[in-house]
């Protein structure tokens, strides 16, 4: 099967020696994110996020179903993560890779186990369901919004970068992902293997993550504002022409 090639020894040494001098391959500082672009729409529950050259499409869909018998007052929230060979050559479709399992596990912890979405609010009363073209959909009620920040560690853990690129991920010796919500609470801290870290490093990282989360949240807010304005324009236009 197709394999994504590992960085060569020269590449590895170049990236490492750069990081030692606080220089990254793409010119970022150690605590800089790549440019973030969030696009919402054109339909409800669809977003495309670009972080540098990394692209992810997310879609929320719903259907009417019977709640679990032991939780009759709660709706069901399922998360599905898919990494196709489009993202990463060498992935075999049908069998989840280790990366995919880790990503879906973090999402599961941050959103479902943290109760970020109000599942009780998903319940419907019989005969009170309206099609989208008759009534505007009600926004999902969201308790809090955990946002993830990833760190990569090099050498013995003293050197680290935020938001590692693919090349940096390939040569890292350890990684850690922290999800922080809008109340500045740590929701998920995932450190699956890799080198052991000093307590002080983890605290330093969480402080930085908290400020990065604020930055991401601002981006999300402005994307929402932009999307709702576009939605308003669209509805007023649709009344005039309908192709």
């Amino acid at each position: 099967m197709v394999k994504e090639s590992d960085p060569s020894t020269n590449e590895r040494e170049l990236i490492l020696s750069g990081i030692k001098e606080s220089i990254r391959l793409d010119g970022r500082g150690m605590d800089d994110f790549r440019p973030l672009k969030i696009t919402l729409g054109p339909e409800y529950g669809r977003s495309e996020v670009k972080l540098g050259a990394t692209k992810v499409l997310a879609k929320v869909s719903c259907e009417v179903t019977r709640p679990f018998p032991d939780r009759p007052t709660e709706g069901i929230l399922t998360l599905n993560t898919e990494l196709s060979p489009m993202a990463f050559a060498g992935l075999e479709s049908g069998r989840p890779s280790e990366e995919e399992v880790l990503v879906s596990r973090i999402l599961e912890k941050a959103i479902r186990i943290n109760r970020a979405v109000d599942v009780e609010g998903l319940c419907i009363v019989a005969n009170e369901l309206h099609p989208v073209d008759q009534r505007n959909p009600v926004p999902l009620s969201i308790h809090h919004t955990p946002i993830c920040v990833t760190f990569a560690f090099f050498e013995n853990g003293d050197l680290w970068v935020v938001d590692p690129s693919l090349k940096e991920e390939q040569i890292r010796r350890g990684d850690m992902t922290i999800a922080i919500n809008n109340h500045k609470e740590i929701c998920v801290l995932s450190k699956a293997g890799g080198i052991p870290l000093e307590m002080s490093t983890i605290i330093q990282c969480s402080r930085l993550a908290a400020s990065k989360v604020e930055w991401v949240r601002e981006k999300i807010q402005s994307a929402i504002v932009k999307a709702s304005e576009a939605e308003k324009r669209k509805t007023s236009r649709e009344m005039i022409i309908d192709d």
Partner: protein
Amino acid sequence: MTSRKRPPTKLRAITIEPNYVNRDGSALFKFGDSAVVCSVNGPTEVKLRDEKVDKATIDVVFKPLVGLPGTKDKTHEYIIRSTVESVIKSNLYPRTLIQIVCQVMMDDGNILATAINATIFALMNAGVEMKDIAVAVACIVNQDGNILVDPKLREVEKAQSYHTFAFSKTTFGLLFGESTGLFTEKQYFECYALCKVAAQEIIDEIRVKIQSDFI
């Protein structure tokens, strides 16, 4: 019943974005809001059990927007594979794999034709040698017996019959045709003729895109 303001034979706006993802070749193809991204890897190493000694193995993965791939998506994979197998010069790449991944970005009808067009453009973008170009377009016959080319999702839902055709660019012969629903022979040939005209439009669009980007 909602009637559309767009003339029955008019296609929605076509958008093509080559190099959409960082692979050997890729493209985003859109009919209006319906969008499919296709990426091509290859020719590359093939698993021993899939290896063919005289030609390339072509593997197609079709990912729906929502949920896990089902029977319909497997059918789409099969259709796309058999369509591109007839145009790729696969004997130039023996013992290799050409891996094609189609991801639906938004479904507003006519998705199979969108996927075929995206695949062809991604193959061109990847520099895979082809002896021909396939262009696909769909149409429906609605309840009033009118033919609507490039239908939107809500038109497809109310359709009497739904037809997807893929044509060869050089001969304008039919490469692939799929029809569902009830229709007469006369309706079928009318659909065929209208889609053929629309296919010419798509070819022009692709040509303009290639000229503006590469020449």
